[in-house]
Protein backbone atom coordinates (compact mmCIF):
# COMPACT_ATOMS: atom_id res chain seq x y z
CA UNK A 1 0.00 0.00 0.00
CA UNK A 2 1.12 3.55 -0.72
CA UNK A 3 -0.47 6.78 0.55
CA UNK A 4 -1.98 7.13 -2.93
CA UNK A 5 -4.09 4.03 -2.41
CA UNK A 6 -6.36 5.85 0.03
CA UNK A 7 -8.63 4.28 2.63
CA UNK A 8 -8.34 0.50 2.59
CA UNK A 9 -12.08 0.30 3.16
CA UNK A 10 -13.65 2.80 0.75
CA UNK A 11 -10.75 4.28 -1.26
CA UNK A 12 -11.14 7.87 -0.08
CA UNK A 13 -7.85 9.79 -0.46
CA UNK A 14 -6.36 10.72 2.93
CA UNK A 15 -3.86 13.57 3.04
CA UNK A 16 -4.26 14.91 6.57
CA UNK A 17 -4.37 13.19 9.96
CA UNK A 18 -7.96 14.41 10.39
CA UNK A 19 -9.00 12.33 7.40
CA UNK A 20 -7.82 9.13 9.09
CA UNK A 21 -10.01 7.33 11.62
CA UNK A 22 -9.83 9.02 15.05
CA UNK A 23 -7.33 11.50 13.56
CA UNK A 24 -4.62 8.84 13.73
CA UNK A 25 -2.42 8.87 10.58
CA UNK A 26 -1.37 5.26 11.30
CA UNK A 27 -4.93 4.06 10.73
CA UNK A 28 -5.18 2.88 7.09
CA UNK A 29 -8.90 3.65 6.93
CA UNK A 30 -10.71 6.97 6.83
CA UNK A 31 -12.76 8.92 9.31
CA UNK A 32 -15.99 7.70 7.66
CA UNK A 33 -15.07 4.01 7.85
CA UNK A 34 -13.65 4.20 11.37
CA UNK A 35 -15.57 4.55 14.64
CA UNK A 36 -14.96 7.45 17.03
CA UNK A 37 -12.54 5.23 18.95
CA UNK A 38 -10.66 4.47 15.73
CA UNK A 39 -11.79 0.90 15.06
CA UNK A 40 -12.80 -0.13 11.55
CA UNK A 41 -16.60 -0.27 11.40
CA UNK A 42 -18.31 -3.54 10.47
CA UNK A 43 -18.83 -4.33 6.79
CA UNK A 44 -22.58 -3.78 7.13
CA UNK A 45 -22.09 -0.38 8.72
CA UNK A 46 -19.65 0.73 6.03
CA UNK A 47 -21.88 -0.66 3.27
CA UNK A 48 -24.97 1.07 4.66
CA UNK A 49 -23.14 4.38 5.05
CA UNK A 50 -21.65 4.25 1.55
CA UNK A 51 -24.97 3.26 -0.06
CA UNK A 52 -26.70 6.13 1.77
CA UNK A 53 -24.05 8.52 0.52
CA UNK A 54 -24.55 7.37 -3.09
CA UNK A 55 -28.31 7.85 -2.76
CA UNK A 56 -27.99 11.28 -1.21
CA UNK A 57 -25.30 12.66 -3.51
CA UNK A 58 -26.03 11.00 -6.87
CA UNK A 59 -29.71 10.09 -6.46
CA UNK A 60 -29.29 6.35 -7.06
CA UNK A 61 -32.17 3.98 -6.34
CA UNK A 62 -31.76 2.17 -3.01
CA UNK A 63 -31.00 -1.21 -4.64
CA UNK A 64 -28.56 0.27 -7.16
CA UNK A 65 -26.81 2.27 -4.45
CA UNK A 66 -26.37 -0.83 -2.28
CA UNK A 67 -25.09 -2.90 -5.21
CA UNK A 68 -22.70 -0.17 -6.35
CA UNK A 69 -21.38 0.29 -2.82
CA UNK A 70 -20.90 -3.49 -2.45
CA UNK A 71 -19.07 -3.67 -5.81
CA UNK A 72 -16.74 -0.81 -4.87
CA UNK A 73 -16.02 -2.24 -1.40
CA UNK A 74 -15.21 -5.61 -2.98
CA UNK A 75 -12.25 -3.99 -4.74
CA UNK A 76 -10.77 -2.61 -1.49
CA UNK A 77 -8.16 -4.47 0.59
CA UNK A 78 -10.26 -4.37 3.77
CA UNK A 79 -13.11 -6.33 2.19
CA UNK A 80 -11.74 -8.07 -0.91
CA UNK A 81 -11.36 -11.39 0.93
CA UNK A 82 -15.03 -11.49 1.94
Amino acid at each position, binding site marked *: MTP*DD*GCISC*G*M*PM*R*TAQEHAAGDPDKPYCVHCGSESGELKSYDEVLGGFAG*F*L*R*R*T*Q*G*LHEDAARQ*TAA*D*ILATRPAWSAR
Partner: protein
Amino acid sequence: MATRREQKAATRQRLLSHAEQLVVRHGFTGTRTLDVARAAGVAHGSVFLHFPSREDLMLTVAAEMGRKMTDRLHALAAGGTGLREALAAHLRCVEEHEDLYHRLLVDGPSLPPEFRTAWLGMQSAVATHVLAAAEVDIGAGTIRSMAPHLLFNTWLRLLHHYLVNRDVFAPGGSVLASHGQELLDHYLTLLTKEIR
Protein backbone atom coordinates in the same frame (compact mmCIF):
# COMPACT_ATOMS: atom_id res chain seq x y z
CA MET B 1 20.40 -1.44 -10.68
CA ALA B 2 16.66 -1.99 -10.73
CA THR B 3 15.37 -5.06 -8.95
CA ARG B 4 13.14 -7.52 -10.73
CA ARG B 5 10.18 -6.16 -8.79
CA GLU B 6 10.98 -2.59 -9.89
CA GLN B 7 11.36 -3.72 -13.52
CA LYS B 8 7.99 -5.45 -13.34
CA ALA B 9 6.35 -2.33 -11.90
CA ALA B 10 7.99 -0.18 -14.60
CA THR B 11 6.74 -2.48 -17.37
CA ARG B 12 3.24 -2.45 -15.93
CA GLN B 13 3.32 1.35 -15.82
CA ARG B 14 4.60 1.51 -19.40
CA LEU B 15 1.81 -0.77 -20.57
CA LEU B 16 -0.77 1.37 -18.81
CA SER B 17 0.65 4.56 -20.26
CA HIS B 18 0.58 3.22 -23.83
CA ALA B 19 -2.85 1.69 -23.29
CA GLU B 20 -4.14 5.09 -22.20
CA GLN B 21 -2.77 6.76 -25.35
CA LEU B 22 -4.33 4.09 -27.54
CA VAL B 23 -7.67 4.33 -25.75
CA VAL B 24 -7.74 8.07 -26.43
CA ARG B 25 -7.32 7.29 -30.16
CA HIS B 26 -9.35 4.10 -30.54
CA GLY B 27 -11.68 4.01 -27.55
CA PHE B 28 -12.08 1.44 -24.78
CA THR B 29 -13.73 -1.04 -27.11
CA GLY B 30 -11.37 -0.51 -30.06
CA THR B 31 -8.01 -0.82 -28.30
CA ARG B 32 -6.22 -4.15 -28.88
CA THR B 33 -3.72 -5.72 -26.47
CA LEU B 34 -1.45 -6.53 -29.43
CA ASP B 35 -1.14 -2.82 -30.21
CA VAL B 36 -0.51 -1.99 -26.55
CA ALA B 37 2.29 -4.58 -26.45
CA ARG B 38 3.85 -3.26 -29.69
CA ALA B 39 3.71 0.35 -28.47
CA ALA B 40 5.30 -0.63 -25.15
CA GLY B 41 7.95 -2.73 -26.88
CA VAL B 42 7.09 -6.03 -25.15
CA ALA B 43 5.88 -9.42 -26.37
CA HIS B 44 2.12 -9.74 -26.68
CA GLY B 45 2.05 -12.44 -23.99
CA SER B 46 3.74 -10.08 -21.49
CA VAL B 47 0.58 -7.99 -21.34
CA PHE B 48 -1.20 -10.90 -19.72
CA LEU B 49 1.49 -11.32 -17.07
CA HIS B 50 0.38 -7.93 -15.77
CA PHE B 51 -3.30 -7.93 -16.67
CA PRO B 52 -5.33 -11.14 -16.80
CA SER B 53 -7.46 -9.95 -19.72
CA ARG B 54 -7.97 -7.08 -22.15
CA GLU B 55 -10.98 -6.01 -20.10
CA ASP B 56 -8.89 -5.92 -16.92
CA LEU B 57 -6.33 -3.69 -18.66
CA MET B 58 -9.05 -1.36 -19.92
CA LEU B 59 -10.69 -1.25 -16.49
CA THR B 60 -7.33 -0.42 -14.89
CA VAL B 61 -6.85 2.45 -17.38
CA ALA B 62 -10.25 3.85 -16.35
CA ALA B 63 -9.68 3.27 -12.63
CA GLU B 64 -6.21 4.86 -12.73
CA MET B 65 -7.63 7.97 -14.36
CA GLY B 66 -10.31 8.11 -11.66
CA ARG B 67 -7.73 7.67 -8.91
CA LYS B 68 -5.41 10.36 -10.27
CA MET B 69 -8.30 12.75 -10.85
CA THR B 70 -9.90 12.37 -7.44
CA ASP B 71 -6.55 12.45 -5.66
CA ARG B 72 -5.73 15.71 -7.42
CA LEU B 73 -9.16 17.13 -6.63
CA HIS B 74 -8.69 16.14 -3.01
CA ALA B 75 -5.41 18.08 -2.94
CA LEU B 76 -6.82 21.13 -4.77
CA ALA B 77 -10.00 21.29 -2.69
CA ALA B 78 -8.20 20.76 0.62
CA GLY B 79 -8.53 24.46 1.44
CA GLY B 80 -12.24 23.94 2.11
CA THR B 81 -13.42 27.06 0.30
CA GLY B 82 -16.74 27.75 -1.43
CA LEU B 83 -18.59 26.14 -4.32
CA ARG B 84 -16.97 28.30 -7.02
CA GLU B 85 -13.52 27.17 -5.95
CA ALA B 86 -14.57 23.51 -5.68
CA LEU B 87 -16.13 23.54 -9.16
CA ALA B 88 -13.10 25.32 -10.61
CA ALA B 89 -10.89 22.61 -9.09
CA HIS B 90 -13.16 19.94 -10.58
CA LEU B 91 -12.98 21.57 -14.01
CA ARG B 92 -9.20 21.69 -13.77
CA CYS B 93 -8.98 17.99 -12.85
CA VAL B 94 -11.26 16.90 -15.69
CA GLU B 95 -9.42 19.13 -18.15
CA GLU B 96 -6.12 17.48 -17.20
CA HIS B 97 -7.61 14.13 -18.31
CA GLU B 98 -10.11 15.48 -20.83
CA ASP B 99 -9.33 13.14 -23.74
CA LEU B 100 -9.57 9.97 -21.67
CA TYR B 101 -12.54 11.23 -19.62
CA HIS B 102 -14.34 11.99 -22.88
CA ARG B 103 -13.68 8.46 -24.11
CA LEU B 104 -15.03 6.93 -20.93
CA LEU B 105 -18.09 9.14 -21.08
CA VAL B 106 -18.84 8.23 -24.70
CA ASP B 107 -17.93 4.52 -24.51
CA GLY B 108 -19.50 3.98 -21.07
CA PRO B 109 -22.92 2.65 -22.14
CA SER B 110 -21.33 -0.15 -24.21
CA LEU B 111 -18.82 -1.24 -21.55
CA PRO B 112 -19.26 -4.00 -18.92
CA PRO B 113 -20.91 -3.08 -15.58
CA GLU B 114 -17.55 -2.86 -13.75
CA PHE B 115 -16.82 0.34 -15.66
CA ARG B 116 -20.00 1.96 -14.41
CA THR B 117 -19.11 0.98 -10.85
CA ALA B 118 -15.69 2.62 -11.27
CA TRP B 119 -17.38 5.67 -12.82
CA LEU B 120 -19.87 6.04 -9.96
CA GLY B 121 -17.08 5.58 -7.44
CA MET B 122 -15.10 8.37 -9.08
CA GLN B 123 -18.15 10.68 -9.12
CA SER B 124 -18.75 9.82 -5.48
CA ALA B 125 -15.36 11.30 -4.59
CA VAL B 126 -16.11 14.39 -6.69
CA ALA B 127 -19.53 14.77 -5.03
CA THR B 128 -17.86 14.74 -1.60
CA HIS B 129 -15.95 17.91 -2.40
CA VAL B 130 -18.59 19.71 -4.45
CA LEU B 131 -21.36 19.14 -1.92
CA ALA B 132 -19.22 19.98 1.11
CA ALA B 133 -18.43 23.32 -0.55
CA ALA B 134 -22.08 23.85 -1.53
CA GLU B 135 -23.13 23.28 2.09
CA VAL B 136 -20.91 26.14 3.17
CA ASP B 137 -22.51 28.50 0.63
CA ILE B 138 -26.04 27.30 1.42
CA GLY B 139 -25.31 27.87 5.10
CA ALA B 140 -24.08 31.38 4.31
CA GLY B 141 -27.29 32.02 2.35
CA THR B 142 -25.50 32.81 -0.91
CA ILE B 143 -26.90 29.93 -2.99
CA ARG B 144 -30.25 28.19 -3.05
CA SER B 145 -30.87 25.15 -0.91
CA MET B 146 -31.76 22.05 -2.94
CA ALA B 147 -31.49 18.25 -2.93
CA PRO B 148 -27.76 17.39 -3.01
CA HIS B 149 -28.14 14.89 -5.88
CA LEU B 150 -29.90 17.49 -8.05
CA LEU B 151 -27.28 20.10 -7.32
CA PHE B 152 -24.51 17.66 -8.22
CA ASN B 153 -26.16 15.93 -11.18
CA THR B 154 -27.16 19.25 -12.78
CA TRP B 155 -23.54 20.38 -12.73
CA LEU B 156 -22.29 17.06 -14.03
CA ARG B 157 -24.87 16.91 -16.81
CA LEU B 158 -24.01 20.42 -17.98
CA LEU B 159 -20.33 19.54 -18.08
CA HIS B 160 -20.94 16.20 -19.79
CA HIS B 161 -23.13 17.69 -22.51
CA TYR B 162 -20.25 19.90 -23.59
CA LEU B 163 -17.73 17.08 -23.26
CA VAL B 164 -19.75 14.55 -25.27
CA ASN B 165 -20.32 17.10 -28.03
CA ARG B 166 -16.92 18.72 -27.84
CA ASP B 167 -16.29 18.18 -31.55
CA VAL B 168 -18.91 20.84 -32.32
CA PHE B 169 -18.26 23.13 -29.35
CA ALA B 170 -14.46 23.16 -29.58
CA PRO B 171 -13.26 21.35 -32.72
CA GLY B 172 -9.73 20.05 -32.26
CA GLY B 173 -9.26 21.55 -28.82
CA SER B 174 -10.20 21.33 -25.17
CA VAL B 175 -13.84 22.21 -24.62
CA LEU B 176 -13.16 22.86 -20.95
CA ALA B 177 -10.35 25.27 -21.77
CA SER B 178 -12.63 27.21 -24.11
CA HIS B 179 -16.00 26.86 -22.30
CA GLY B 180 -15.25 25.80 -18.73
CA GLN B 181 -15.33 29.26 -17.19
CA GLU B 182 -18.55 30.15 -18.97
CA LEU B 183 -20.22 26.94 -17.75
CA LEU B 184 -19.07 27.58 -14.20
CA ASP B 185 -20.34 31.17 -14.22
CA HIS B 186 -23.67 30.11 -15.73
CA TYR B 187 -24.22 27.29 -13.26
CA LEU B 188 -23.49 29.54 -10.29
CA THR B 189 -25.86 32.18 -11.65
CA LEU B 190 -28.64 29.58 -11.62
CA LEU B 191 -27.87 28.71 -8.02
CA THR B 192 -27.29 32.17 -6.64
CA LYS B 193 -30.02 33.61 -4.46
CA GLU B 194 -31.46 36.93 -5.55
CA ILE B 195 -31.01 39.63 -2.94
CA ARG B 196 -34.24 41.57 -2.52
